[in-house]
């Protein structure tokens, strides 16, 4: 079973994502911000990360840049899932090493489709 780490400071978003991803038979882990996610990944590397942008302590972009420098941080797929919906933000995220990008609000079909785009489904 593949594991996805959901990184979002909103418990509601984490709950929705967990429900959808569990239905898709993923093992789901959660983190409230980038720093907590980074600590988690240092101990256990997930197969993929669903990543919010605007979070306290360490935001999604800062996390991604640090994450890709981890010894095993190059291969997991990272899908941004954020309300940062400007074209320039999307370009910044993709250039920083994101594999796909979801603009909130999202639904089950979009999440499934994006995970398919990166080869996880």
């Amino acid at each position, binding site marked *: 079973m593949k594991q996805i780490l959901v990184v979002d400071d909103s418990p509601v978003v984490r709950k929705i994502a967990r429900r959808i991803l569990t239905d898709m038979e993923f093992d789901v882990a959660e983190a409230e911000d980038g720093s907590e996610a980074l600590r988690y990944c240092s101990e256990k590397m997930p197969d993929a990360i669903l990543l919010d942008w605007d979070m306290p302590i360490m935001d999604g972009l800062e996390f991604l840049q640090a994450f*890709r420098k981890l010894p095993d941080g*190059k291969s997991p797929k990272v899908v941004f899932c954020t309300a940062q919906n400007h*074209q320039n933000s999307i*370009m910044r995220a*993709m250039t920083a*090493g994101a594999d796909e990008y979801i603009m909130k609000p999202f639904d089950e*079909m*979009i999440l499934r*489709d994006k995970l398919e*785009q990166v080869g996880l489904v």
Partner: protein
Amino acid sequence: MQQQSFDALCAYLKRTSGLILDQSKQYLIESRVLPIVKREKLGGLADLVLILERGQNQSLAKEVVEAMTINETYFFRDRNPFDKFRDVVLPKLISARQSERSIRVWCAAASTGQEPYSLAMILDEMAHKMPGWRVELVATDLAEPQLTKARAAVYTQFEVQRGLSTAHLLRYFTQQGDTWQAIDALRSKVQFRQLNLLSDYASLGRFDVIFCRNVLIYFDVATKSDILKRMARILAPDGALFLGASESVIGLGTDFAPDTEHRAFHTRGGVGAALGQPIKTPVIGTAAAPVGGLAARPILPTPAAQSPLGSRIATR
């Protein structure tokens, strides 16, 4: 969108038309019903539901139901047909058409444009293998409002996230406030025309590939057979017909048969034709611009000597 209003509209549609919408169809309401709310200058979806519930405006009720029953479409729908078009059909046609240097594709149920633009993106990515070729992509639909939207190529945030990779979004679309519009270079690759599938196809000329997906389901058996027979007449003997994932040609005559190797598309049955056999294909119809790849957009690093996008766009 208020969940309560969404639920109320779903309940109304189920009661009045038997249409069942789950949470995943929320985007359909956003893209199809909210424009009606805006046009009617209503305060929101809740106001529309109130009018519908009261039965005060039958024409409005009819319009909302029709808006929600229009066949669903999205970019690269079902993915597999587009993969087969790019990886199987197109390479064989490129090999078979070396002397004619011409390929014509007909998208017979263009709807709001997502399918023809998906094909246009693939053709653009393969343009380096067809330097100087005439490539025509003709897209037809019965409904003029759909064609108007298709020509404008303006899509909501939800619509551009359905089937479209972020790489394609950045490469071929420009953000305009809350919406995204296909760039001119992509739009200009598609010729949109109004056409009833029950009418004569002769004016369209001959095609190498026909996409007619998820539209035959609306016709009876005799009409389906007739449409397929007439499509066979304008499809090259070594051409390919793509139908919807749930559609088949079983019981609809012998004009087409599933490709023996790749069942994602159909070839002309009974003529022994197979993709890859060179044939003379007269070029009919309006002049097409040579394919040369869309204007370069300085977006992100791209893999060298490959398609303008490639499968990955970000370097690490």
